């Protein structure tokens, strides 16, 4: 346990140092994280304004609240492991990670958390600014605010486990781009990034309830917006727990099978 804590601390220092080295990449990445929800915010606000101030059960101000909270939730749960793993396998960099005495997922987790310690405060400032500009409105009950923290943490863990497992596809094919892109497109529609899920056709809503996407992004957002009842929230927590368990089991199975067939392409 102590060794693990040291590993996390060391990874934090490394991540910090490399982030200061790649400031420009950081800026570019942030532009992407902000721009996409911002564009949908603007588009939906206009739709809402032209149809008399609301669409479905969202008013213009609630749309602003929705997409700004979504920006933060997406930032909090974001991982970039799917882009990185292909490179690791292809270049043989994974070989070094395998030689270490701890599972490589730990250094990825530490890297992810450390970089967010830096980026999250900046994103919160940006979100606060946008909330003022667009008159965002959210109205959660006190219990919803209290439950938001565990829901958000679970959302992050589910997303991390699922995306880490999917990234392992790189063991079987060197062309994971197609898998990644399909995943991100599904995510766009089923997690609520393109529009609140209640505005999408009902087959999409049903699919979103079964698949993990909603539980990684849409669910925490709806909770903080004050749109869920206590029962819906508890059911959602159950779904998150189920996906967490499923993700964990899948990860172990796929990882074992993958390591067995791994032979560094570059080696």
């Amino acid at each position: 346990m102590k060794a693990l804590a040291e590993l996390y601390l060391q990874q934090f220092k490394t991540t910090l140092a490399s982030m200061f080295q790649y400031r420009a990449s950081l800026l570019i990445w942030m532009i992407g994280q902000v721009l996409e929800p911002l564009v949908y915010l603007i588009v939906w606000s206009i739709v809402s304004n032209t149809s008399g101030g609301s669409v479905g059960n969202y008013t213009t101000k609630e749309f602003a609240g929705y997409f700004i909270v979504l920006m933060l939730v997406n930032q909090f749960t974001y991982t970039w492991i799917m882009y990185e793993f292909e490179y690791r396998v292809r270049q043989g960099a994974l070989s070094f990670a395998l030689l270490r005495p701890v599972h490589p997922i730990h250094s990825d987790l530490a890297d992810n958390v450390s970089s967010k310690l830096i980026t999250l405060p900046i994103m919160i400032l940006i979100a606060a600014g946008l909330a003022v500009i667009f008159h965002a409105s959210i109205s959660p009950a006190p219990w919803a605010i209290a439950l938001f923290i565990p829901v958000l943490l679970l959302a992050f863990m589910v997303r991390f486990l699922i995306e880490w497992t999917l990234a392992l596809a790189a063991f079987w094919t060197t062309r994971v781009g197609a898998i990644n892109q399909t995943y991100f497109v599904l995510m766009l529609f089923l997690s609520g990034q393109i529009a609140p899920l209640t505005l999408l056709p009902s087959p999409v809503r049903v699919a979103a309830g079964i698949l993990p996407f909603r539980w990684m992004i849409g669910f925490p957002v709806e909770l903080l917006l004050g749109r869920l009842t206590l029962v819906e929230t508890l059911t959602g927590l159950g779904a998150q727990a189920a996906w967490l368990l499923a993700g964990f089991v899948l990860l172990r199975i796929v990882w074992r099978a993958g390591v067995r067939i791994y032979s560094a392409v570059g080696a």
Partner: protein
Amino acid sequence: MKYLRLLGAFFWVSVAGELAYRVNFLWQLFQSILSLVVSLVGLGVIFSYTDTLGGWRPDEILALVGVYFLVGGMIGLVIQPGMEQLIESVRDGTLDFTLTKPEDAQLIVSIRRVEIWRLIDIGLGLAVLATALIRLGEKVGGWQAGMFILMLIAGAVIIYSFFLILATLSFWFVRVENILVIFQSMYEAGRWPVSLYPGWLRYGLTFIIPVAFATTVPAEALTGRLTWETLLGAVVLAVVLLTVSRVFWRVGLRHYSGTSA
């Protein structure tokens, strides 16, 4: 004429190189179609709740999506790869070889790399554009078509000059490849008419990173929204930027002293 022959030669070299990786074609096709589907389904969702978006009707936004893919394809086909290679060759000093060639160096660096698979985006963009035009029917006359082509050329010149100016910065600062990526992520915002955006974002997308001239302005021309001010502004800006980028390139070149030498 000679320049067209040169472009042709570079193009066929790329084709020959890529034919060894034919699976890339399928992969690129998949990627482009997926990206188009996202656009179209997104439009479908939004227009199921409204008839017009900031005064634009569905078929007009469809035309804009066509322009978005067409121009994105043109940038990815030749402008961006050439500029990326320019930055790289300034860093590692291989620009020396280009400078010794008898042709104009700016021309060669601009056309020597062609990413042929991006022709798929151009094809998809044209198909979407054609669909939109058929649905718009008689509303698009010869005048609009002519202005559209003029604005498309002006947009391409503006984007090319913008990229060249940024890439030329590499003569002074070695690490500038990131600036090109910023353009790419801002280009996403060009899927929608910039007139939708609040003032600060609209000005940013028009004058700092000229996405508006690449997508919105040609689409405005096609749908009869183009004002004389925009028309004139785009043409003047294209001429000015092209001249400035040419001068800037020459000044930059004087600064270059083959790093490897």
